[in-house]
């Protein structure tokens, strides 16, 4: 059976193809359209997925959309009605928007793909999140938690799942919290208030939180209250998204926390104002953690299960994830590589296969590499045409040269095989550098990635040596597989891991299993032999504001724009040559 899963129209669109119960291809539209967080109908992603399996759209048995547009419309309309008459400005905009194409998804899909509308199906947004988390995880029985901004009505769900290779699958979502009460929207309001882009800058809030003290925790707990039944509710006087649709926080919010940050000015943590914003971030982060950890704890008590699968945008919060793992009572915590809405394309397809069509479960390969692969010949051609020194290397030569380069302080673009599905570079589209050099962090932030100086970088370490350098709780290695947890760096190593240790002594470490990315694993081992520590700084291969690179041409262009020293794509290596490059620029000017 051939099933295409699609998510689109809100944050990051994506497509995923399932054949006989196993993923064949999955990619976010932004990686192909090159527009960050592209939410449009994922034409390119669909085309690429079908092309991977040499399928025509008509050969698909089913197309499944990750949520129910009519229910979503119901929520939007109801919200506007409840906000009457304050919602008058938002109403025309929202209606234009929904009635444009979001409400007619069945027709849009049928028309775009030329498939019969009868083959187009829908599922619930949070079921897609649940399926993406549970059906990709190597567990037979697990509790399920999903939390995001909002789907149709639900913003957080609790449930449990059961599956067995060759057998039937069940996913039971038991309870939900509904819009406008939402952990995701709570955090997004602070993202906006702190001057970052909503749905994109949430990482920055988490990074900033480490610099602050939770001085505002009391106020936060007033805004994000617990209900008697163990759920939570937002005090809506402080928010505006339920009325205005595009505004996040209200005047009462500003009266409480002071004026929002001016996003044109960088955060200066040496000033009182900069510290104030860090404190706000720390407080919002703390209270989010308290609520999610508590909900996870009671879910553990209720189900008595050892495993938890966690999906939805909130599962990108690595600090909260690590606390859930340590405190909620579960032995293992599974967060998929794409817990956000893009991952719902794969989740919806898996749900359709196992549950809608009742097909036996098959264990999914436990890796994130479902996107377009590197074509190294392209890099050789580009380098030759532009006069950059390049070479074709054996695996051993490649490792030698990259180790040598990084050890001497160079910055290397590393491309290998298929792209990652999800927001993180997990070793196939990475920028690698020396993790020990503190100046490296400032330099990478400023000159290579053009981003805020307070943002930390992540380390990557082989699984069997992770414990030596990082304080991993039981199950921590699993959570670190897709870089989903933030853990303390052991104090004795912090000085030697200065570029990847955050101000609070933690790191969002990727714990690399040899089988997942053998090339990078071998590189780490070789680097360890040379420098004593098998750890590298691993950051996504893109510049600020761009999606992660997909093709070699994009990697090559980013390598040149950022002034990186070396670029490796499978077996081809290109080096920067300063003199030559400047010469070319002069010639053009």
């Amino acid at each position: 059976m051939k099933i295409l899963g699609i998510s689109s129209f809100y944050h990051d669109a994506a497509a995923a193809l399932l054949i006989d119960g196993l993923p064949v291809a999955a990619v976010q539209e932004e990686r192909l359209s090159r527009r960050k967080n592209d939410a449009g109908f994922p034409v390119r992603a669909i085309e690429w997925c079908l092309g991977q399996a040499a399928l025509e759209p008509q050969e698909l048995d089913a197309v499944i959309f990750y949520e129910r547009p009519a229910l979503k419309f119901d929520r939007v309309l109801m919200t506007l009605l409840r906000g009457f008459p304050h919602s008058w400005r938002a109403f025309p905009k929202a209606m234009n928007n929904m009635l444009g194409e979001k409400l007619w998804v069945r027709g849009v899909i049928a028309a775009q793909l030329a498939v019969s509308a009868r083959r187009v199906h829908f599922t619930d947004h949070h079921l897609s999140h649940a399926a993406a988390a549970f059906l990709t995880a190597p567990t037979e029985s697990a509790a399920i938690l999903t939390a995001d901004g909002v789907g149709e009505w639900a913003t957080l769900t609790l449930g449990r799942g059961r599956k067995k290779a060759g057998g039937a699958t069940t996913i039971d979502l038991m309870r939900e919290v509904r819009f406008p009460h939402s952990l995701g929207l709570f955090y997004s309001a602070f993202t906006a208030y702190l001057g970052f882009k909503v749905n994109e800058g949430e990482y920055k809030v988490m990074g900033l939180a480490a610099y602050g003290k939770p001085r505002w925790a009391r106020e936060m707990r007033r805004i994000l209250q617990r209900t008697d039944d163990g759920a939570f509710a937002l005090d809506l006087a402080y928010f505006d998204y339920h009325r205005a649709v595009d505004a996040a926080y209200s005047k009462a919010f500003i009266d409480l926390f002071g004026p929002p940050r001016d996003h044109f000015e960088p955060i200066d943590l040496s000033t009182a104002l900069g510290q104030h914003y860090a404190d706000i971030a720390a407080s919002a982060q703390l209270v989010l953690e308290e609520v999610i950890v508590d909900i996870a704890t009671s879910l553990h008590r209720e189900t008595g299960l050892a495993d938890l699968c966690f999906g939805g945008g909130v599962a990108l919060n690595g600090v909260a994830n690590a606390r859930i793992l340590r405190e909620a009572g579960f032995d293992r915590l599974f967060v998929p590589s794409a817990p956000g809405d893009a991952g719902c394309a794969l989740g919806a397809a898996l749900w359709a296969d196992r549950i809608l069509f009742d097909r036996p479960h098959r264990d999914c390969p436990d890796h994130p590499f479902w996107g377009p692969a590197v074509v190294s010949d392209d890099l050789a051609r580009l380098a030759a045409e532009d006069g950059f020194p390049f070479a074709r290397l054996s695996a051993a030569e490649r490792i030698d040269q990259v180790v040598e380069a990084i050890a001497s302080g160079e910055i290397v673009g590393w491309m290998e095989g298929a792209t990652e599905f999800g927001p993180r570079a997990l070793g196939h589209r990475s920028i690698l550098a020396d993790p020990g050099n503190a100046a490296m962090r400032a330099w990478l932030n400023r000159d290579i990635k053009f981003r805020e100086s307070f943002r930390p970088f992540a380390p990557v370490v082989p699984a069997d040596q992770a414990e030596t350098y990082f304080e991993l709780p039981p199950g921590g290695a699993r959570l670190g597989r897709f870089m989903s947890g933030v853990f303390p760096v052991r104090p004795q190593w912090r000085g030697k891991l200065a570029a990847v240790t955050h101000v609070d002594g933690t790191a969002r470490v990727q714990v690399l299993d040899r089988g997942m990315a053998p090339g990078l694993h071998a590189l780490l081992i070789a680097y360890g032999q040379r420098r004593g520590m098998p750890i590298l700084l691993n950051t996504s291969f893109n510049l600020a504001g761009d999606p992660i690179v997909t093709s070699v041409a994009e990697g090559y262009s980013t390598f040149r724009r950022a002034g990186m020293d070396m670029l490796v794509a499978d077996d081809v290596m290109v080096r920067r040559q300063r003199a030559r490059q400047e010469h070319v620029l002069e010639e053009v000017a």
Partner: protein
Amino acid sequence: MYPVHWLVWIDPHRRARKLLQFAEVEADGARDLFRAAEVVQDPILRRRFFAHARDEVRHASLFRTRGLALRRRLDRPGPDHVLGDGLLPGERGFDRLNVEAESMSALLAFIHLSERAASHSFAAYGAVLGHDPETRAVIQQIARDEEGHMRYSRVELSRVAPGQANRALWASRLRRLWRAYVRTALVMADMIARLILTLLYFLLLPPFALLARRAARKEPPGWHICNACRNDRTGGQY
């Protein structure tokens, strides 16, 4: 246009805001040109686009630095965007390059025309900035680059499409006109739709709003039975 330009640039708030908006436009332009360099097969064009994109990156940072400096002098900088800002376009006018969808000659013709328009408007802006020599210097410096871009794109157009450059330019001009028309039509349609929807909002919605509020009051916060537990196996939209 002179009095309009003068009016726009005399107000310090608007001046700062425009410069920051121009910075965004230049940054977008740079991104599009880097994209063009990524997809183009011809190595000479790749080199040109790359150098051009780097210029635009520099323009973005020049505009931004100057805009921020002006902004810091204001007591209350005000909002980032104000109705009517769009009337004074930056470098690309209103269009973004659609790199993948265009032929190389169409792309070059588009670049040539928009760089030409940009160098003209930047020259005009410079002419009314006598009261702010620093901003004027920035704009004039950029205007000179735009002339360079205008020239190289014309030369490359003749090289890539010998004998067809004029036709490509005319096609591009017509396309610009057509896009301007479509854009205006869409704006009009949007305004009419908004007007109608706003009328509907106040005329039809009040009773439903009342019902919706009553229902909301009945729905307490906290846990709810899951919608998704209906175990719906139809895969429908509802």
